[in-house]
Every structure is written in C-alpha cells, then in structure tokens.
C-alpha cells in the first residue's frame, strides 16, 4: 500500500525537522556548545523516516552512533533530546549517555550504540522476545554499511534467519565507513546480497526516496509481523557532512558531495508534494517555521536546564544499588 499524500506530508515534516535540528546541532557544536562528538545524519533523512513510517510506536529500534535521525523519526522528544546532547540533567539519559546513547523505552528506542554493529543482535533479541511473548511487534536494527563487516552482524543475521525472528535489519549504506569508501572496506556490489548467506530476503532501495523506503520497509515489517521472518533492507544514501563534525574529508571530492546533494531526499519529496498539490511555498515555509519553533523551544529549554550534580554519576549503575563517591 503506497503512502497517502497525508502520510507523505507527515514524513516530509519529520524529514524537515531532522534536517533543521541537525543543522542547529552543527552550529551549536561548531560554537563549542556541545561536548563530545557529533555524527550528522544530514542527507540520510529519508531512510530513518521511511523506515519509521512503517513502524508502530510499540515496535522496537536500535540506533547507531549516527542516530539522531532515528530518534526523531521514531517520535523522540526534541526537548529531552537536545538536553541530553548538552549533557543536561533533564536529558533523555540524565546526561549520562549523550549523542550516542539516546534511549526512550516508551517509544521502543532501545538505545543507540557507540560500538559499531552492537545494536544488531540487541534488536534481534528484542524481536525474539516479542515472538516469545506473543506480541506482534517487530524490531528494527539500524546499521551502517561499515557495520556489515563486523562479526556480530553475521552472527545476528544467521540466528535471526534460523529463528525467524520478526526483525528488519536496515543498512544505511551511505558509501563510507569512517574515512573508508565502501570499495575500501568490502568487495561486494550490493550490501543486501549478504542476505543470501542466511537465506534471508535482501532488498536494496533508494534510501533518498522516502516513499520507496517506506514501501520496502512496510513490506519487510509486514512480513516480520506476520511471522515471515527477517529481512535485510539496504537503503542507499549518502552523508553530506564529514564522518564527525570537524572531519576535513580529504578522502572524497566536493563534486561527489554536490552530486549527492542534488539528490536531496527533502527536495525530492517537496517536489512530489507540490506536484500532488499538497504543498506550496507558504505551507512549505510553515513546515519549516514550525520545525524551527520546536527546535528553538527545545534548545532554549536545554540551555536553561541545569547540569547534573556530580553525585548523580553514582546512580543508575545497578537497580537497587547506589555507588560510593569521592569522600
């Protein structure tokens, strides 16, 4: 079932929100406001939004180091999100996680991950739990192309196929793993060809086409939910910015980047909505203004929020135990 115009509009709005939130983050980071690393999702919005468009709120996802888009697409609260990235006490993780560990159990966000590939078996295990509990939920593991080289990817997919867990492995093939182009880290035409090693359906889709992603995800999610087992879904996309903010990117040409910018998932969607008469300049501006206002509110709240007090570091290690601090 293709997306209705309403759905498309909703996805468009989310993509714009991600883009603008990321742009704001980039500015804040450059201004020295954000501690740690930032891995920008700009350019890949259609993947997160298309996939999450196929999910219910009670479905699970595991995210990655490049996870901001996933969090927002799954419905994450922008205020809690920004506060976390600022390291504030009011953040999603009370300031303990930061950019790479945003978690929202109410939305099925089982955490992002600082370890490449580590979320793959975790999502699959959550999918197994759903099946064992008789729930018709599914779990999506987001992962990069680089993550398909690490051992646990292989182990997790083999086990998923064996147990027919209701999982979808969404590979965001953005052409690079760190500074290494895909040709420099794996010799294989399509990432989705790796599904054959597990007799699992492998699908490749234009990751910059939110409708195509949403359709492919809907099919894979539907199969999983219906007991038909897991899918490896490759979304071919591109990261516009460096691996991390500050990456000088000597490993690629600006021509290559510009070429991909011409395939901007947001402009593409905008054009479609305009063609369908569902968007004009005014409503487009309205979408952007709405997103910006939301971001402004979130950032302002985050900035105003207190840093955690040092002793909060002692909590949340174990259920039922608070550690001893410096005396």
């Amino acid at each position, binding site marked *: 079932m293709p997306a209705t115009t309403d759905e498309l509009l909703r996805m468009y709005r989310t993509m714009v929100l991600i883009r603008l939130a990321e742009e704001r983050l980039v500015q804040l980071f450059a201004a020295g406001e954000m501690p740690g690393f930032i891995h920008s999702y700009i350019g890949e919005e259609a993947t997160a939004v298309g996939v999450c468009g196929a999910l219910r709120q009670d479905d699970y996802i595991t995210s990655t180091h490049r996870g901001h888009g996933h969090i927002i697409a799954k419905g994450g609260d922008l205020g809690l999100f920004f506060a976390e990235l600022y390291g504030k006490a009011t953040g999603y993780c009370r300031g303990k996680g930061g950019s790479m560990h945003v978690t929202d159990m109410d939305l099925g966000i089982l955490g992002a991950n600082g370890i490449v590939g580590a979320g793959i078996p*975790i999502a699959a295990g959550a999918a197994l739990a759903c099946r064992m509990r008789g729930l018709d939920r599914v779990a999506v593991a987001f992962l990069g192309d680089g993550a398909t080289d690490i051992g646990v990817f292989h182990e997790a997919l083999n086990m998923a196929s064996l147990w027919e867990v209701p999982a979808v492995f969404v590979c965001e093939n953005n052409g690079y793993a760190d500074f290494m182009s895909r040709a420099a880290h794996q010799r294989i035409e399509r990432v989705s060809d790796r599904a054959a090693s597990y007799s699992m359906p492998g699908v490749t889709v234009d990751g910059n086409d939110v409708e195509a992603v949403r359709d492919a995800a809907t099919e894979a999610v539907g199969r999983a939910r219906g007991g038909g087992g897991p899918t490896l879904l490759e979304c071919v996309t591109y990261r516009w910015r460096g691996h991390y903010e500050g990456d000088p990117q000597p490993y690629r040409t600006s021509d290559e980047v510009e070429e991909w910018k011409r395939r901007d998932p947001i402009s593409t969607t905008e054009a479609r909505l305009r063609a369908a008469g569902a968007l004009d300049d005014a409503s487009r501006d309205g979408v952007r203004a709405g997103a910006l206002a939301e971001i402004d509110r979130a950032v302002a709240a985050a900035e105003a929020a207190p840093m955690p007090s040092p002793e909060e570091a002692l909590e949340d290690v174990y259920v039922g135990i608070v550690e001893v601090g410096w005396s």
Partner: protein
Amino acid sequence: MTRLSYARAVSLALAEAMEADDRVFVLGEDVAHGGAYGATVGLLDRFGPSRVRDTPISEAAIVGYSVGASLAGMRPVAEIMHMDFIACAMDQVVNQAAKVRYMSGGKASAPLVIRAGTGGWLSAAAQHSQSLEAWFTHIPGIKVVTGGTPADARGLLLAAVADENPVLVIESLSLYERQDEVPDAPPPYRLGTADLKRRGDDVTIVTWGAMVPRVLEAADVLHGEGVGADVIDLLTLRPWDADAVLASVSRTNRALVVHQAYRHGGFGAEIAATIAERAFDQLDAPVGRVGSLDVPVPFSPPLEEYVLPTAERVAAAVRAMA
C-alpha cells in the same frame, strides 16, 4: 534434602526458575541437547524448544540476543560453554549488558543471566581452562556470582535469575560431577552476602568457586595442626561482602585469599588490597594470596597440577603466615 551433583543442581535451578516465571528461557550451544556438560538436561522435554534454544556457535550473538530479549521483557539465561569463549562476547557483556542501564540514565535495564562453565583440571589446555572473573569484577554494571557446592550453585542461580541486573554466573566445571546435599525448598540467597563455611580463630581464608572444597580440605588439615580457619566463601564476587571479610579479619588478624584464577592481577588482589588497607592495624602478617601461577594452563596433567592451586599449597601458605 536430596543428594545432587553440581550439574544437576544447576538444571534443577533452571527448571525451578522457568517454572516460576514464564519469561525465563535458556539459550546456548547444545542446551536443548542437555548441554555439553549436562547442565540443561531435561529442560527441552519439560519446557519445549521455544524456551530451550540451541544456538549456532556465535557467542557474541548469544549474549547480544540476551541483552535485547531482556530489554524487551524476557529473562534470558545464556550458556557460555567454557568461560574462555566469553572472550568472543566481551563487547556484548561489558559494553552492552553492563552499561545499558547507566548509559540510558536508568531508563533501560537488562536482567539477563550468563552462565559460564569455568576452570581447569580438565586437561583441556590453555583455551579451555581459564577463570576470568577478574575481567568482570572490574566492570561496574554487572554482578558476578559463583557457587562451590551444588546447593550454592542452585541458590545463586535462582537469585541471579530473579535479579533485575545482568548477572554472570560462574560454574566450576571441575565440580560438575561432585555430589552433595541440596535442600528440597530453594532457600533465599541474597546476592552480595558471603557464607562462612567454616569457623576458626587463627586465620581468615577468603575463597570461591572450585577452590571452596579444596580450601575446606586445607582447613581440615590445618585444624589437625591446631590452626583454626574461618573459611569465607564469597559467593558473590561483585558486589563482594567486604563487611563479612573485615569482621572476620578483625578477629583472626590474618588473611589469605585463594582463587583458581591466575594469581597475578586476579580478583584476589582487590580483596587483599582492601583488607590490607582497611584492616591495616589489625594484621599480624601480610595478607597472602594463592592462585594459579603466572602461566597459561598447560595440557599435561603433571604440568596442570603444578600450575593450579591445591589444598596443600593453601595449607602451606597459611603455615607460612604463622
């Protein structure tokens, strides 16, 4: 009371836990076939293939699936056949299971259990004989327990499954066939509480796991020589019962820590350093430590026997403290 082997006590506890709570399931290599060392015998017939899952040879995924399943409401109990193989799953144990709660600011927790068959005296050489508890006692976010008797193995495993945190349960393979009394009703075990296995006033011996029977043997010998030993079986290595240890040392004024793991950099160092620090004025002799020699575990029996700690060496260490 029933007489059970250590392995049978483990399967009893697993069956009890699965009976009591639908969310509990076991996974691991060969577990549906009873397990390589027989710790899961009978579970498949009783609980069926959905809750007793053979896995491919994929230690990282075994633990990773357990993390995910626990986050999503189940209570997985994963088996790692030999503790040495947990090296293949370290990221999932240490960077995922142990940290997910903290990194999420308390939002998520991963109540999973990892059972690992551990230790030497199997003539199985360097990759099948290690006691690696020190890797995990160093890591906040996971609990570590180990029983040295069938009854303790059962009680601790039940408590581990009931715990809301990830728990590593170390089982001594060299004790698997050992039989002993196990009470009919599962007694409550509190993780973090040590057990005084024997009482004596001259020295405190702190130990755990496979060394428990060996230390008790040594304590018998010492008793015959007029030396009385408090034998404290820690049971939980993380968090460990420092109060019980220090209370005993304040009475005996001498302490020896004994474990099967390599002595050098073993968890015994933490205990010895803690005693030496906190009981500084009470000690009549340096805190001793007995553990494996600082070499990999060799295959040939006379070599292995030489490298691993024995009751005799424990007794000798106590005598040297007199």
